[in-house]
């Protein structure tokens, strides 16, 4: 048993760290009365590319100008810019988290900004831990570059305060009534004082920036916060980037050597179990099920994110989490329709059959957050006679069917 110590290492500014030290301007000009409002970045520009690939459109074909055709041929055969980054992005496979970690800032930016791949390991979505930590240490101002976590936290704080206030009012009302009914005798001043104390307390709770904080911001400590966060890619995301797009190279955390593409699939399949399976890959491995569905929806242009928070397998975003909420929640269900599985009642009965109340439960949870539930049935092929090494061939044996589910109420769906 060890007691742990916080592991934020504070290094003096100017030391060689992964990112530049925050610029601190010690200007002598008077501080403007209104702090500059934090501006949201222009998401439409930032996330213009749907995938981390560079594409160059071919020059236009002008029918009466035969030279334009030549131009197209040249552009097609000798593209000016490479669509793939060179060298390729690098991710490290960690058996401890069953995931791929990315620490290079360029790669994190490329994967998050272009297609919303991965998640900050200490953040809700985009890696922003270091910003929050800097604010906590006073390196940056209270309202500077607010992260989505902080916005949520403030909202929750306000809500909590509202509830406290409501509970207090309720109690006061009840006591007043009891006094009126003569059931209790009110102690003269004590109560009054207490109530006032509570009110005062609640004022301190409201997160109003005191005027002195402006001055404080001038005395920002010059510290460098070590970024403990990495971008974490799920096995499916990493495989899509490596196999589907070919922009990612995956190294093993233990040997620091590149894992060849042909070994990736079986490695990921065995690590989709907890604890990992060492032998006996099955056609209904969790990785196969998930990847087939992930690849399917990514190919159709959806931004696919894990959906555990809403008790589903995936969430489908039209453009990405920064633009809109996910409209659809995906639940993956294996289907053992192939005659091969008829004899395997353990799978057919055990994994296909679910109680009705389970379906109502998942549907209610999705409708609570205004998402449409999509049941995605993956037809499980029989085990191959010979284990095939061609990933495309393996994937082509799977079929996907989608069923959208919505509760229908007689009385509410009349028109």
């Amino acid at each position, binding site marked *: 048993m060890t007691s742990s110590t916080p592991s934020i290492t504070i290094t003096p500014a100017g030391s060689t760290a992964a990112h530049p030290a925050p610029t601190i301007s010690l200007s002598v000009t008077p501080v403007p009365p209104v702090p500059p409002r934090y501006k949201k970045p222009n998401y439409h520009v930032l996330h213009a590319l749907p995938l981390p690939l560079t594409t160059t459109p071919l020059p236009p074909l002008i029918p009466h100008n035969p030279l334009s055709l030549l131009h197209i041929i040249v552009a097609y055969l000798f593209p000016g810019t490479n669509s793939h980054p060179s060298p390729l992005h690098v991710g490290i496979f960690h058996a401890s988290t069953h995931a791929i970690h990315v620490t290079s800032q360029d790669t994190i930016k490329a994967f998050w900004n272009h297609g919303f791949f991965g998640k900050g390991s200490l953040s809700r979505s985009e890696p922003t831990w270091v910003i929050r930590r800097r604010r906590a240490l006073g390196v940056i101002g209270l309202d500077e570059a607010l992260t989505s976590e902080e916005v949520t936290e403030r909202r929750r704080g306000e809500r909590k305060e509202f509830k406290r206030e409501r509970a207090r009012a309720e109690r006061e009302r009840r006591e007043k009534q009891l006094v009126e009914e003569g059931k209790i005798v009110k102690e003269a001043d004590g109560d009054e004082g207490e109530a006032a104390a509570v009110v005062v307390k609640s004022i301190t709770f409201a997160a109003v920036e005191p005027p002195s904080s402006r001055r404080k911001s001038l005395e920002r400590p010059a510290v460098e916060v070590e970024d403990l966060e990495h971008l974490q890619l799920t096995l499916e995301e990493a495989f899509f980037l490596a196999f589907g797009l070919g922009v990612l190279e995956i190294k093993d955390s233990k040997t620091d050597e590149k894992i060849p593409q042909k070994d990736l699939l079986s490695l990921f399949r065995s690590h989709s179990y907890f604890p990992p399976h060492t032998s006996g890959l099955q056609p209904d491995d969790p990785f196969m099920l998930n990847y087939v569905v992930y690849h399917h929806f990514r190919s159709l242009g959806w931004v696919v994110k894990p959906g*555990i*928070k*809403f*008790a*589903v*397998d995936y969430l489908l975003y039209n453009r990405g989490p920064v633009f809109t909420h996910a409209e659809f929640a995906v639940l993956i269900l294996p289907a053992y329709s192939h005659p091969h599985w008829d004899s395997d009642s353990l799978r057919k009965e055990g994994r296909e059959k679910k109680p*009705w*109340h*389970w379906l*109502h*439960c*998942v*549907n*209610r*949870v999705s409708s*609570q957050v205004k998402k449409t539930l999509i049941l995605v049935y993956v037809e499980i092929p029989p085990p191959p006679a010979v284990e095939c090494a061609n990933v495309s061939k393996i994937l082509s044996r799977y079929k996907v069917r989608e069923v959208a589910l919505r509760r229908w109420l*007689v*009385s509410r769906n009349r028109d």
Partner: protein
Amino acid sequence: MASQWGVVEPFIIYLVEGRYFLYDANVVSHVREMHRMCGCLTGTLPQIPQQNVFLGLPLELMTEEAALLVEKGAGYVVDDVKSHERGLKAMMEADKQAFLAAREAESVREMQVLLKAAEERKKAYKTPKASSLKDGDDGGEDGEAEDASEEMEEEPSSATVFDPDTKPKNSRNSQDISSTALRYYPVPSTSMPLYHKPLPPPPLSSLAPVPSKTSYPLYKHLHANSYFLSPGLRFGCQFMAYPGDPLRFHSHFVVTGMGWDEEIEMRDIVGGGRLGTGVKKAWMIGGEDKDKPGTVRTFCVEWGGF
């Protein structure tokens, strides 16, 4: 041991097509008051059949409720269809005649009550009218009323179930008393006592549905802790658990029963937690400890809040 509802235990629980029903409003009240069971009203209302918001008798019991009532000795299960057929077959001619005579007598009695009431109404109507100017109209009104009642009189007699010819003589006598009367045959809301002669309480038939081994111990456990339980399928669980009568309290738990070693996916635990917290309840799962029969463990899951 008749309760305030006049119900004597053990009462009959009717089994129809694998479902348990109570037909008698008194038994329904008794079960709710004395046994903390609400069941589900399933009967449609004859005048507004195209809605399912307000329902009436019969009351359908959950399998768990029926099983517990039988286990406590408060009720016993009777297969409604079989006992109906058996009762009809075993009925003697004398029983039939006696039944018809009793029904007729009841009908006559009802009619006389009605007649008497009508007479009194007429008297009360005529007394002030005698002083009024329009005396002559009285006869005409009476005649119309007579015609109408004669037309309607035909219907009940042709609706006699067994044999129109056996219609007892005294019915004609009663018509002699007054041909203006309306005839009613009482239709009881419960099954006929004629062919439901109290049978010895049989053991729960092996064909009757028994509650699932995963949910029944949990049901009994919560019931013993004075919770009211109602079916929870609509809400995504097996039972809703109320701390008192559901008309007075909100439910506290959405409950699902499980086997001791039955596997549940983490994703579904998260789903259960969200389901409960979304409606300010806790999601409860539980079941019987395999190693300690009779012991039920329950676990309540709520969102962690961060």
